[in-house]
């Protein structure tokens, strides 16, 4: 644990220094890549709450990632085209302000997480996996068949949404914004897992029957974890759209759910920085192996098999020598 904490501090130190590297080596692409890692790390941190800490194997987190992404895309699209989003019963226009878009993306992701959680948490095990997958796929196919917002081709927003006193088109500025949300997500997760509520959902993962027997309403606990988890992933989706200035049905596809799950498993489930490390490893692999072969995912699969067989606590678990004695 001590080594892991030390390693975590180095990760944070490194993340804070990235803009400096970008400037020194004059590599804005490096900063963009780091921003991608940070945003996907946030998505993984969201899933980690449900999957790593509560044992909810969700294959539907692409839905929340995509909802956050599409909310950002749609609001921005309407603002750029100066079109109303709704004209009845009230007039609602689009927005290109991040400070307006984020709360809406967060609220809508939370609402969808609540609805999907309410229905899917009545099941467990493989049925839960399938029902969350089904919800995400429903949204995926809906987005494909929605021509107003680009259908299968997706939606370009040309310019990043704006943030007061920052040029969001500047890679360093946008990286700082994303890093703020990463730190915020880590802070929220840390507070949650050390709270009485966190104790409840971590106990549910280990022995739900026992938790019920001490009078804790496990359904409500799981639902709230699922909503918080989905909301954080939705926020990541919103940032991802701004990063790429584009959103397409791909973000809602089950591959996205699978990738977010891979970040969590690679980095280490139920480890605060695990998804961030997993996302960094994934992107590094994509960039390095991807330049040699189109089939880089074959090697990713191989690594994933090795992690599952020999390092179940993920990459961060390798730095945790006191795992057995840790809560």
């Amino acid at each position, binding site marked *: 644990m001590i080594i892991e904490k030390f390693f975590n501090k180095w990760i944070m130190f490194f993340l804070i220094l990235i803009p400096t590297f970008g400037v020194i080596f004059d590599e804005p692409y490096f900063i963009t890549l780091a921003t991608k890692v940070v945003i996907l790390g946030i998505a993984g941190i969201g899933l980690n709450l449900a999957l790593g800490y509560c044992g909810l194997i969700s294959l539907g987190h692409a839905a929340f990632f995509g909802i956050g992404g599409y909310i950002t895309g749609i609001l921005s699209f309407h603002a750029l085209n100066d079109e109303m989003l709704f004209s009845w019963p009230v007039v609602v226009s689009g927005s290109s302000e991040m400070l307006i878009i984020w709360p809406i993306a967060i609220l809508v992701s939370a609402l969808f997480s609540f609805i999907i959680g309410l229905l899917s948490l009545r099941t467990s095990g493989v049925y839960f996996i399938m029902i969350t997958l089904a919800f995400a796929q429903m949204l995926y196919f809906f987005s494909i068949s929605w021509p107003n917002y680009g259908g299968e081709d997706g939606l370009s927003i040309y310019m990043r949404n704006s943030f007061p006193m920052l040029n969001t088109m500047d890679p360093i500025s946008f990286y700082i914004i994303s890093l703020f949300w990463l730190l915020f997500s880590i802070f929220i997760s840390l507070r949650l897992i050390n709270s*009485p509520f966190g104790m409840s959902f971590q106990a549910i993962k280990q022995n739900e029957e026992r938790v019920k027997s001490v009078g*804790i309403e496990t359904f409500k606990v799981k639902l709230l974890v699922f909503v918080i988890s989905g909301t954080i992933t939705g926020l990541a989706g919103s940032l991802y759209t701004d990063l790429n200035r584009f959103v397409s049905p791909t973000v809602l596809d089950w591959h996205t759910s699978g990738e977010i799950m891979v970040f969590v498993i690679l980095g280490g489930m139920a480890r605060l920085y695990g998804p961030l490390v997993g996302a960094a490893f994934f992107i590094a692999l994509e960039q390095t192996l991807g330049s040699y072969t189109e089939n880089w995912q074959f090697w990713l699969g191989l690594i994933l098999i090795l992690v599952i067989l020999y390092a179940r606590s993920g990459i961060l678990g390798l730095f945790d020598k006191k795992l057995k004695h840790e*809560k």
Partner: protein
Amino acid sequence: MKNKILNIKNLSKSYGAFKVTDEIAIDLNFNEIHALIGPNGAGKSTLIKQIVGSVKHDIGSIVLDQEDITDLNDVERAKIGISRTFQVSSIIPKFSALDNIILSLLDKSKETFQLFKSIRKNKELVSKAKKILKEIELSDKSHILASELSHGERRKLEVGLALAMDPKVFLFDEPMAGLDESGTKMMINLFKKIKTNSPILLIEHDMDAVFALADRVSVINYGKIVATGTVDQIRSNVLVRDVYLGYEI
């Protein structure tokens, strides 16, 4: 009726043609330890599961403290005051002994949905949990992972989890199984002390412990209560000797 805190009538459960519990009628008075004995497979644990609501009964009624709880689910029954131990130790393996007890205190102290308050800084909960660990003689193991406790220590921790809920009744399913002599003695003293606050329905195979503790004993066989009485009445009951005790008692 006023003297009864738990009153079970006509409780039956069948799996196909096999009746696990057959029109069970059993009650629990205030300040009482009521032991339920019988051979393996007689239906004792299934009866406990039906009382706590984890197994749904086919017919019958359960009244706790003059409130009909027949239609409540397992969590609602736990909240209302039924606390149990499991036949096979059921703990949170990756939590320390102290955290297991704290978990059990959460609902009663309405802390479950405290999202951002650190549990370590809740001195009241921690102090209550430590007090319970002291009662079950596990103070020196408070920071050991539950999965690393010995079998006997886990049984004690199970009882600690039940104690922490401060319930109206305890349902203890073989709490002394696997305990050494001093552990059994500790349990006997503890049960004698706690029964004045919350009576106990006790399933136990250790007949010495049963006879030392029970105010009343019921004998179950093939899902039916075949006898109920004081320890002396049960000891001298010919039918009970036939089905369970044998003639050497």
